[in-house]
């Protein structure tokens, strides 16, 4: 085989690995509950493909080929461990399916179960997102660790521990029943959103809630939506992330300086992303079951209107925030509500809402201080504003945001 063909085979393997990774891991672990073994078997199958495909040519259905190869290596592994009696049912299930399996057969998509397992209440919430990124998207521990500000070794150990818990902790691979579904789905949505970059930038501050894995988060949301197209909140989440993503390039100036939403050049917003977000949000609304992510997306949709009208309908933003505070009174939401009310009804009204938030809850919350400083400045309370800007500057992570606030403080 010549070099070109070899390269093409490698590209095919990479593509199949990227597109099918989660489906294969989910299917392979749904019976055994052993996610780590499924991942190992899949990497082994990929290595085998790298050897065999260039020699024998591409199989007709590469995904099915990988599945069979991975399953055989799991069966071998179980036999080697000589715990056949214990794992008899698993082994039987695997071999039976293996013989019945046809190269071209479609296998069931178990990714939804895997997503629910990753965000199971028995798993440390801090590990929900890393688990999803690894098992569904195939991201390596090093890449995930980078986004979570910890060492690859530590992230690797935590992932191993979580997978042992999944295997041995009696966590079931199943779709939660009606009664539990909405809370369990919330955890899945929250974990996907946690991978996303900027949370709020419609205030004077920036809530660095996410992990700057925006593309991966959007990908996960699309996977989820494929599996449960009738869940309005899943659609709302995708819409929300697309609205925020549409403004990514406008958020930074030529010198990487920070540009707040109100000063962004709308010509730099991505219209295709905004339009896709609008379609999803409209479809989500049709279900008549409003929720947190749909409301957050609705707020962003009002901001996105500026691309057409040139102005922001602040009373509409404030109304959506008011509803959002009612169902999810988190500090970030209440701060956003205060900022919107200030823009709609004046800085005093906004400050009053900020005063209602408990001091304890905001001692390390940067957007609260940035909004407060902005409103105090508008009211001409220069000394107080300067002090408060200091607090916001001290809590900023992003040097560009810090510079922006230092300039505003004057």
């Amino acid at each position, binding site marked *: 085989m010549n070099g070109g063909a070899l390269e093409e085979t490698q590209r095919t393997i990479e593509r199949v690995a990227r597109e099918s990774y989660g489906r294969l891991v989910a299917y392979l672990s749904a019976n055994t509950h052993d996610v780590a073994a499924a991942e190992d078997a899949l990497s082994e199958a990929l290595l085998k493909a790298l050897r065999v495909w260039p020699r024998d040519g591409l199989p007709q259905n590469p995904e099915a080929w990988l599945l069979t190869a991975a399953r055989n290596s799991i069966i071998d592994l179980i036999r080697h461990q000589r715990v056949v009696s214990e794992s008899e049912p698993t082994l039987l299930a695997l071999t039976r399916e293996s013989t019945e399996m046809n190269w071209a057969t479609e296998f069931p998509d178990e990714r939804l179960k895997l997503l629910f397992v990753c965000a199971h209440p028995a798993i440390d919430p*801090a590990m929900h997102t890393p688990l999803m990124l690894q098992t569904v998207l195939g991201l390596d521990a090093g890449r995930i660790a980078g986004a979570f*500000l*910890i060492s690859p070794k530590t992230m690797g150990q935590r992932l191993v521990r979580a997978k042992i818990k999944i295997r041995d902790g009696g966590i079931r691979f199943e779709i939660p029943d009606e009664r539990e579904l909405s809370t369990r789905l919330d955890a899945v949505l929250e974990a996907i959103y946690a991978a996303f970059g900027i949370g709020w930038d419609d205030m004077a501050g920036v809530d*660095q809630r996410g992990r700057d894995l925006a593309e991966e988060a959007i990908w996960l949301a699309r996977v989820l939506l494929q599996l449960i197209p009738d869940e309005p909140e899943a659609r709302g989440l995708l819409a929300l992330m697309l609205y925020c993503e549409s403004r990514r390039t406008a958020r930074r100036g030529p010198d990487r300086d920070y540009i707040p939403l109100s000063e962004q050049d709308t010509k730099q917003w991505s219209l295709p992303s905004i339009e896709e977000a609008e379609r999803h949000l409209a479809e989500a609304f049709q279900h008549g079951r409003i929720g947190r992510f749909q409301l957050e997306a609705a707020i962003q949709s009002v901001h996105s209107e500026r691309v057409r009208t040139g102005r922001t309908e602040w009373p509409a933003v404030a109304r959506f925030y008011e509803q959002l505070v009612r169902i999810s009174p988190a500090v970030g939401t209440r701060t956003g509500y205060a900022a919107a009310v200030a823009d709609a009804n004046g800085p005093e009204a906004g400050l009053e809402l900020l005063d209602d938030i408990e001091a304890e809850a905001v*001692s*390390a919350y940067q957007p609260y201080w940035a909004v407060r400083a902005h409103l105090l400045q508008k009211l001409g309370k220069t000394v107080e504003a300067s002090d408060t*800007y*200091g*607090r*916001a*500057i*001290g*809590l*900023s*992570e*992003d*040097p560009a945001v*810090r*510079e922006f606030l*230092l300039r505003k403080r004057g």
Partner: protein
Amino acid sequence: MQFALLIYESPEGFAIRSNDGSDSYIAAWRAYYKAMEEAGIYVGGDPLQVPETGTTVRIKDGRRYVQDGPYADTKEQLGGFTILELPSLDVALDWAARCPAASIGAVEVRPLAPAMKDRIVRE
């Protein structure tokens, strides 16, 4: 529990120190200190003089070896430390990320070792 944030600065970071008080890096440090104070987590800390002022001592075979400058010859050098009282490593990492030095140098987070201190101080 208490954590030390060990602040490593590049030569450029150390150079900023000789600028006047209006420099934005120093203004950012002032704001950072204030935020820690007001959050009620600040225990202590100090900046160190530039690495060139350091002197390293080692005893080998009973002899004293004195070396001009810090022990390790790396680009980023210890420039100061801050001790914070915090509930968890995750919170400590958040504070380290807000440290102005994190964007031009590096901040290492280490828990203090009170058990070790007890062995030294009490026994």
